[in-house]
């Protein structure tokens, strides 16, 4: 379990290049660093549910990213807050 304040790295992975898949991790966040804000609960992995496969229950986190870390022309302190499954996060 990742506690609030933990710095994390979103895996730089592109399952869509390997075949049919269903992903809830937006492409613009992959490979970027964020900070865990809160644990939102545990949910069956939608990547499996979408194909009717047995779905392991995964922790879901709210993770905050500075806009300036995502876009070259961003300015200021604005942020993006996103729900991400633990399977996509690595402690940074």
């Amino acid at each position, binding site marked *: 379990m990742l506690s609030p304040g933990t710095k994390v790295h979103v895996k730089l992975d592109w399952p869509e290049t390997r075949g049919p898949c269903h992903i809830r991790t937006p492409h613009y966040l992959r490979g970027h660093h964020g900070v865990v804000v809160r644990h939102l609960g545990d*949910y069956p992995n939608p990547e499996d549910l979408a194909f009717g496969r047995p779905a392991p229950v995964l922790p879901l986190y709210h993770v905050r990213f500075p*806009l300036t870390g995502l876009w070259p022309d961003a300015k200021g302190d*604005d942020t993006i807050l*996103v729900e991400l499954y633990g399977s996509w996060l690595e402690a940074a």
Partner: protein
Amino acid sequence: MNILEAPSDKLLAGIRTLLAVKGIATADEVAERIRITDSASPARGAAMVARAWTEPAFRDLMLRDGTAAAESMGVPMRGLPPLGVLENTAETHHLVVCTLCSCYPRAVLGYPPFWFKSAAYRARAVRDPRGLLVDFGTTIPAEMKLEVVDSTADYRWMVLPVRPAGTEGWSAEQLAGLIREGDMIGVTIPKGP
């Protein structure tokens, strides 16, 4: 025949028949779910916001457990994703988007506005949120923090806006009349009298 080219009304009838035959959902259950979805509108969310502005205990419940707050006002939430509520303050403004598809808190806001699902809104909300807000006629002061909330997974998010000045002493019913759909998405801000 390619399923993508099949007549959609026949596909729908086929899926409904399969749901019934397999014991997943009866025709009555499907009809009931459609009725519940059709009956939702932004007026429900507005009533929740107005109550949160006038009852601190309800505001606390709404921020802690949006689903429980909605249920306490008679909104059917069973079987739906959890509702999360994001509080705007003098320091922070929230803007909700679903970049992956069109996740929307339909139970409390009804069907999403047409632009919410557009590729332009979804792309620009995360790339140039302040510019997008200007196009909605909303200017966020430079010193105010903007947090874009990308609804990607199991939650649905709505914004609890800041109560406008000049509404002191108003009843919850009067306040609810001020609140528009966009105020609860974060593209606009409720206007006072």
